[in-house]
């Protein structure tokens, strides 16, 4: 399979690249051969060549630059998503999938609008999805979201006061996944990682143990639960 890591130098503010390097390893552990291609904003790509497209977090300015570059692929990405192929947007890359960001046209894959706020919302979170389970992470954003409830991915189990635009977090439409959680969210959550990997495995997944990843997840989950 082929993975496209979009804008790895522009949108890599919180060690987000960790998602892709470990995802590759986990897929390979399932016997899948993986090629990762990287493209920056001044380079072009053909979405049809890929099975998974990933983008991570950037600064607010970087996000605008990413949007401008990606808007050229609006039509192709729509088609890509409708075909059921996988996209994972983490951190503020997830905002690109909405209708608009501060009034500017975005990809229109998810029915939501993004508005920049004066305040910055930061803090550790626990979110939950019935199929995936509890997911831990950190949110660091200065935007509020309107809409997107129909495609919600997670519900909040724990978050800091202040972060109250919606009761839900992230989205999923077909195999388009988005979450505001920054950084290596798949590394930190072996259950979320396994879920994404399972999309590419036919039949039963091979049992592979990842003691460090499981340990790290348990540590953070129990630390955050102490603060609930």
């Amino acid at each position, binding site marked *: 399979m082929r993975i496209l890591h979009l804008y790895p130098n522009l949108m890599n503010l*919180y060690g987000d*690249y960790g998602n892709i390097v470990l995802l590759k390893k986990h897929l390979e552990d399932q016997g899948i051969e993986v090629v990762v291609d990287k493209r920056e904003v001044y380079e072009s790509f053909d979405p049809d060549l890929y099975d998974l497209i990933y983008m991570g977090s950037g600064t*607010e300015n970087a996000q605008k630059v990413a949007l401008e570059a990606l808007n050229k692929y609006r039509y192709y990405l729509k088609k890509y998503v409708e075909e059921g192929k996988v996209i994972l947007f983490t951190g503020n890359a997830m905002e690109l999938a909405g209708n608009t960001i501060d009034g500017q046209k975005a990809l229109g894959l998810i029915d939501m609008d993004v508005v920049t706020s004066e305040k*910055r919302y930061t803090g550790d979170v626990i979110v939950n999805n019935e199929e995936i389970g509890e997911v831990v992470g*950190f949110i660091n954003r200065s935007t509020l979201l309107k809409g997107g409830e129909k495609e919600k991915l997670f519900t909040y189990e724990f978050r800091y006061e202040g972060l109250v635009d919606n009761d839900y977090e992230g989205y999923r439409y077909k195999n388009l996944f988005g979450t505001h959680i920054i*950084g*290596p969210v798949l590394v930190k959550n072996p259950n979320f990682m396994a879920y994404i990997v399972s999309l590419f495995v036919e039949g039963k997944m091979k049992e592979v143990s990842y003691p*460090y990843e499981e*340990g*790290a997840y348990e540590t953070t989950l129990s630390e955050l639960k102490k603060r609930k």
Partner: protein
Amino acid sequence: MRKFLSIIVCKLAKWICGYFGRGSSFPGQVALKICPDILSRVKLPETVIAVTGSNGKTSTVEMIHGILEAAGLSYAYNYEGSNQIEGVTTLVLSNCSLNGVFRKDVLLIEADERYAKYIFKYITPKYYVINNLYRDQMTRNGHPEYVLSDIAKSIREGSKLVINCDDPLVSSLSRRFDNEVVWFGMEDNQYVSETCTSVYDDGFYCPVCHKKMIYEYRQFAHVGKYECSSCGFKRQDPDHAITSIDLEEGRITIDDRYDLHLAFNSIYNAYNLLAAFTVGCEMGLDEELMCETLNDYLIRNGRIKSFLINGKKGTLLISKHENTVSYDRNLEYVASKEDVTLLMIIDDISRKYFTSDTSWLWDIRFEILNKESVRQILVAGKYIDDVAIRLEYAGIDMEKVKTFRYTKDAVEYIGENVEGQLYALTCFSDEAKLLKEVVVE
């Protein structure tokens, strides 16, 4: 009347705090309650020097203090821990007469990069040193571009900006302001690299127009000689420069003229020293005397601490968690030694706030440790598994890595098993966990 009361209460509170060994923010906090604009009501000296940036503020301020002292000037200064408005208020008021006249020749301020905008609402520094901007405690501070916008809000008309020309992010401030700028930087040398050596590249895109930036060379990370491929933004020629550097011998040359020895061999130390020198030049201080003072200048926290575990000597290195540059610097240092055992303690990510976020581990170049000479890597604390994942990805032989939930167990292991040179690397937030288990020399 409010001014008088504010000053006298601050002085009193400072005396009481001093008596009980309390911090230096509280008196200023009380004074600000009584008179919120007290800083604009006191008479400050003509020379106010301010220093901000991600790393090296305290060192730079200490070196400026050294050259002021040598020049026979009287001065007052603060340091990390009291570098927000409350601490600065304590500093100013405790050096004022009761009618609000600052009684020293120079006021020297270390300013927190996020909170400088509040401090300089009332004070206009004559010289404003902006050292650098790195990824630093992003869970609390926000990312460098966000911090830069805070620094921009702290710049007053009339301040002369003293800027590191090698750091594109802080240099881009000169595009936004008409203030006079004095540039300092480091010239090409034998340590530069053509490509980015850190895990991420904050110099990849131009901070002004976001097109690709081209580097002729880099000193480290995004610091070097750069030029935008599109908008013309580029490194300015420095007014004062490190024109040669020898890190093995710890020697630098400033402006092709002055040869100095460094008390601590690092490129970062050289930058801080040059920033101090540049301020002194702007003040018209005697250059030779400054160099004499700065030669082998030992900063307070520059003293390397050593300790003993079961008779085995170890060296303590401090890096700040969530601060990549400070980690990379110490990892490079450890990896340059022969036959090393490294102990890292990552337990409380911050001493000021809680977070369980470990994304920052992915920004650190642990790949540096992937060397034969690094014999063992011991990791202690809550986040051992997070570190282990990162070390494994860095290609490190996991046979070399041992993890311990508690520092105490790591220390016990070292006492019985470890040979070779021992280094411990941790943050202020976790330092005490080691120090209470060892004999401090």
